[in-house]
């Protein structure tokens, strides 16, 4: 564990003294904390479900959809993580995601879904290579290059669709969409989620908390595509590679202080290239995940690459954190898609969460924060009481608002890689 020399190795309890909270979070060290937060959220969700009667909040259908919708965002976020850990900001993720969707769908239909996945990965990696050439070799500003790649990626996909599909030779395809790609096999957890389906039975039993937990878990373990499992596994794998291997240590050192890394013999350029190409490959995989079992459509990515970047920042440049961020975006999307009226329950959830925040702040004796949290909580509670439904257009951006709030509240405590976004030129210390 890489915890800096600080007081005691483990968190003394749930509520930490404010002064120590920031620097001591190591990716795994706070696992008790993570479990506690997850349990707390589960209790709150169950409570809200009972109070508002919106069963979709914790149903297996919602959690399954949330997982599926979180995958492309999470993969884009992993791409962002790899690049930024090596000090390269990758705004071009959106373009690489688009490349992944187009090539994933094209090859996926012509050859097969797994070949499509590989093609998506390769196409995304090519986009990443382009970004690496521009930013690492030529020293172009990272955001500028990324924006250009987004333009290019979208253009290539539109053009190729015209070339490949406009003549109507491919069944079901058209100038702005591809043919249907076969799905990848699903698996379910034996006994618990299939066959006897214990979780499903528990979910139907309607017990407070237990059925809610069963619903959420059931959705996450029933009928899950192998591709989704692969994507989920990439999160701990990224953590292991980046934080558990010499390669990862060097890669991260390049993102923190390339001059020092170079003086120790670390091949800075090569590692940046590797990281950015990997970043594109992750985004390409995310694109492929969107089209496998479905089709390519123009505008389908709908800014998921950008949202992935937001998830990286939300997660403080950590794999676990970005997975939580992606989960949040996926959950909000799923609720909106599946049950618009369940969203009303979310208002109550926000109000309750803010009450919890107020209590925590009270313990830390920050009165202005307590008052602010309570006022906003009251506003949400009033909103909940006043309306029957929340307009779906407004629900769509809930996670974005949440991310903005998190950034506004926590941006002082977030710690990006020190040399993130800075051009590096060997032998020129700037």
């Amino acid at each position, binding site marked *: 564990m890489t915890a800096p020399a600080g007081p005691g190795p483990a968190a003394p309890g749930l509520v930490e003294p404010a002064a120590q909270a920031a620097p001591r979070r190591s990716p795994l060290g706070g696992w008790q904390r993570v479990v506690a937060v997850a349990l707390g959220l589960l209790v709150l969700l169950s409570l809200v479900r009972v109070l508002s009667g919106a069963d979709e909040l914790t149903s297996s259908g919602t959690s399954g959809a949330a997982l599926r919708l979180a995958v492309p965002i999470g993969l884009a976020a992993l791409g962002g993580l790899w690049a930024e850990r090596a000090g390269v900001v990758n*705004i071009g993720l959106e373009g690489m995601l688009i490349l992944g969707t187009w090539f994933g769908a094209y090859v996926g239909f012509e050859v097969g879904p797994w070949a499509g996945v590989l093609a998506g990965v390769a196409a995304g990696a090519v986009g990443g290579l*382009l970004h690496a*050439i*521009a930013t690492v070799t*030529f*020293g*172009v*500003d*990272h*955001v*500028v*290059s990324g*924006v*250009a*790649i*987004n*333009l*290019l*990626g*979208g*253009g*290539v996909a*539109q*053009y190729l*669709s*015209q*070339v490949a599909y*406009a003549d109507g030779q491919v069944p079901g395809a058209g100038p702005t969409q591809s043919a249907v790609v076969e799905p990848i096999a699903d698996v379910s957890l034996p006994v618990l989620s299939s066959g006897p389906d214990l979780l499903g039975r528990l979910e139907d039993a309607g017990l407070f908390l237990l059925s809610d937990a069963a619903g959420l878990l059931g959705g996450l373990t029933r009928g899950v595509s192998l591709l989704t499992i692969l994507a989920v596994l990439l999160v701990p794998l990224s953590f292991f590679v980046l934080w558990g291997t010499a390669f990862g240590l060097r890669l991260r050192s390049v993102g923190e202080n390339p001059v020092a890394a170079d003086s120790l013999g670390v091949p800075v350029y090569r590692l940046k290239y590797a990281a950015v190409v990997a970043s594109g490959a992750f985004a390409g995989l995310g694109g492929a995940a969107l089209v496998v079992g479905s089709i390519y459509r123009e505008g389908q990515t709908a*800014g998921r690459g*950008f*949202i992935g*970047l*937001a998830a990286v*920042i939300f997660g403080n440049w950590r794999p676990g954190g970005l997975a939580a961020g992606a989960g949040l975006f996926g959950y909000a999307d799923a609720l909106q898609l599946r049950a618009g009226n369940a969203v009303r329950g979310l208002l109550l959830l926000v109000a309750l969460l803010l009450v919890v925040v107020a209590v925590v702040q009270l313990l830390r004796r920050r009165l202005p924060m307590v008052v602010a949290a309570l006022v906003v909580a009251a506003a949400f509670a009033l909103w909940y009481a006043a309306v029957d439904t929340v*307009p779906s*257009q*407004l629900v*769509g*951006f809930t996670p*974005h*608002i949440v*991310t*903005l709030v998190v*950034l*506004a*509240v926590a*941006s*002082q405590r977030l710690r990006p890689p020190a040399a993130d*976004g*800075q*051009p590096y030129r060997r032998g020129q210390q700037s």
Partner: protein
Amino acid sequence: MSTTTDAPTAPPEPAPRAQGGALRGVLLAVAAPVVAGVFALLVSSLALLASGNAPLEVYATMLEDGTELRSILITVNNAVPLYLAGVAVAIGFRMSLFNIGVEGQYSLAALLAASAGAAVELPLVLHLAFVLLVAVAVGAAWAGVAAVLKVTRGVSEVISTILLNVVAAGIAAYLLAEHLQERVEGSNNSRTPLLPDSAHFPTLDPLVRALGLEPPQGTRLGGFLVVAIAVGIGYWVLISRSRFGFEVKAAGTNPFAAMASGVDTRRTTVLTLLLSGGVAGLVGLAQVLGTSFSYGLSFTAGLGFTGIGVALLGRNSPVGIAFAALLFSFLERSSSTLQFIDVPTEIYVIMQGSIVLSVVVAYEAVRRVAATSAERAVRRATDRSPA
């Protein structure tokens, strides 16, 4: 983050070199756009060849159609919003601020300005001024959210404007669907009520006629061009003739040095983003006041993102952005004729993308060459006169 403004990175004045210095400087300055143009043509040609088309024939068709009067008028009309979007982005770039939120700023501004304009009755000039004012205010306010988050909470404007784009799109969709739309008989396009005649921007057709040309049927030269030119002049005055422009340049180039010499960087950050958002608010108005007279579901989207490319291509200079906007607009217009020779019109998006990418690479490469040669010249000069 490094700067993208041309201020600190422009090829420096030819260093004091004995011979050929000036020529070299000119060559270097011209080299970048030429190299980038050639490269972009190469990429587009490859894309065309890959799809089985003859590049030369395609380019000839585009040139032929694009230089007809009708196409020229359409090109200029479509360049106006691109120019405004480019200037909005460039204002931020001047201070190393990435306003990626032009997209959200202009769509929200166009919606609210169109609704507000339809809700009031005013005489001609006042009515136009009112709509313009609302649009500028809305655009500035939306950018102001990102500005406040940045200076008070340290949230990067890159990420906040990206998120705010989605929020703006959601709010606009909600407002349009629930509060501001007017049902149109026999059409499923929901839109805001039409603006009265007093809010129709006069066209510049008399100007075209004064030049001895007759605008083809159904094509006109939109009057909003005047606003774009005014914004361009205002931008030029701001960046090169005003104290604020100097402070922005200083703060963008070296915030610490600027702060040390008394520039309030927080204030300049907020003002820069407000200005950027204000100009962004105008982007949609060429359409609202000139052609559609309303904001609806079919309103042009994506100008904010294209505007980033335009600003990059134009190197943040008022004139450069104008050329970039015209080029982008020309490519889009002239490629629309390609469908008649069975070439996907989308080739223009590839052209635009590859031009931007190769231009930024070429400028950076040229800047490096210029910087090294300047360094070498200085070293030679100092070697010659030992202390």
